[in-house]
């Protein structure tokens, strides 16, 4: 029985030619109700070479160009057709919700790094003794520390307020190896990535204590896993 490598879940058949996959296999579509999986025949998961990973993303980007809504799959997913169709039916509700979220949108990423010796950042790491104090400064620090623990990245607040009109959804992934502190994934309307970059560059100086690097646009990889969570 044939097995299929899965590139993406779509809300409709792409309007553009499917083309071929990372092993030059012709792409085809498996459907379950209103959900579509873009797949190529492949017996075994591919080796994760640089070319294969780049190829996966290239296929996803091409499919995205012809589709309103796309949920990229993670590299290396190979399944039998019957199992895929069964999974599509089982995960349908979550997939539809996620497809609605990403429809007409793409992903931008802000990588956040601590700046060594930043005064404000050091203040956030103030000793726990501040919790016992009652002054406004101590309360401020306590609140900042709470926000940081919860992943809210308060340093980004001034920038976020400038990006709000561009952002449809946000996901934050904490990093645990200083100075890499977090990656913030934003969903923006397709075609607005340049405006997003411009907004970040224009207001970069508002962000203190961290350094930012912008990446994108990407297909909405970071907003796909929740589809089946």
């Amino acid at each position, binding site marked *: 029985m044939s097995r299929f490598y*899965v590139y*993406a*879940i779509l809300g409709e058949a792409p309007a553009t030619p499917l083309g071929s996959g990372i092993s030059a296999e012709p792409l085809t579509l498996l459907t379950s109700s209103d959900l579509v999986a873009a797949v190529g025949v492949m017996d*075994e*998961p591919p*080796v*994760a*070479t*640089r070319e294969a*990973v*780049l190829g*996966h*993303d290239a296929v996803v980007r091409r499919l995205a160009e012809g589709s309103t809504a796309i*949920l*990229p*799959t*993670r*590299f*290396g*997913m*190979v*399944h039998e057709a019957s*199992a*895929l169709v069964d*999974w599509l039916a089982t995960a349908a509700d979550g*997939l539809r919700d996620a497809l609605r979220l990403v429809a007409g949108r793409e*992903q931008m*990423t802000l*990588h956040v*790094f601590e*700046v*060594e*010796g*930043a005064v404000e950042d050091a203040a956030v790491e103030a000793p726990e003794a501040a919790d016992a104090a009652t002054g406004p400064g101590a309360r401020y620090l306590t609140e900042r520390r709470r926000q940081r623990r919860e992943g809210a990245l308060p340093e980004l607040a001034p920038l976020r307020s400038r990006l709000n009109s561009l952002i449809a959804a946000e996901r934050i992934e904490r*990093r*645990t*190896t*200083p*100075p*890499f502190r977090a*990656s913030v994934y934003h969903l923006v309307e397709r075609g607005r990535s340049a405006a997003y970059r411009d907004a970040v560059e224009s207001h970069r100086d508002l962000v203190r204590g961290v*350094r930012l*690097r912008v*990446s994108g646009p*990407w*297909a909405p*990889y*970071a907003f*796909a*896993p929740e*589809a*089946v969570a």
Partner: protein
Amino acid sequence: MSPRRAPTEALLDEADASLLDLVDNVLTKGVIIDGEVMLGLAGVDLVYLRLTAILCAADRIKKYLG
């Protein structure tokens, strides 16, 4: 004077940044089908790849992706 930049940060601002973003997105994000978490990546397990991506050790990633 500009703040001194850590090696990890410098690494991500250079040519390997695009590769690391690729690893971050394609290998550690995206829909996981049917709860599958470990992939047949020719002996390179996903946990290692993920840790490597998070640690931004591009030189170690390139050993596998280069």
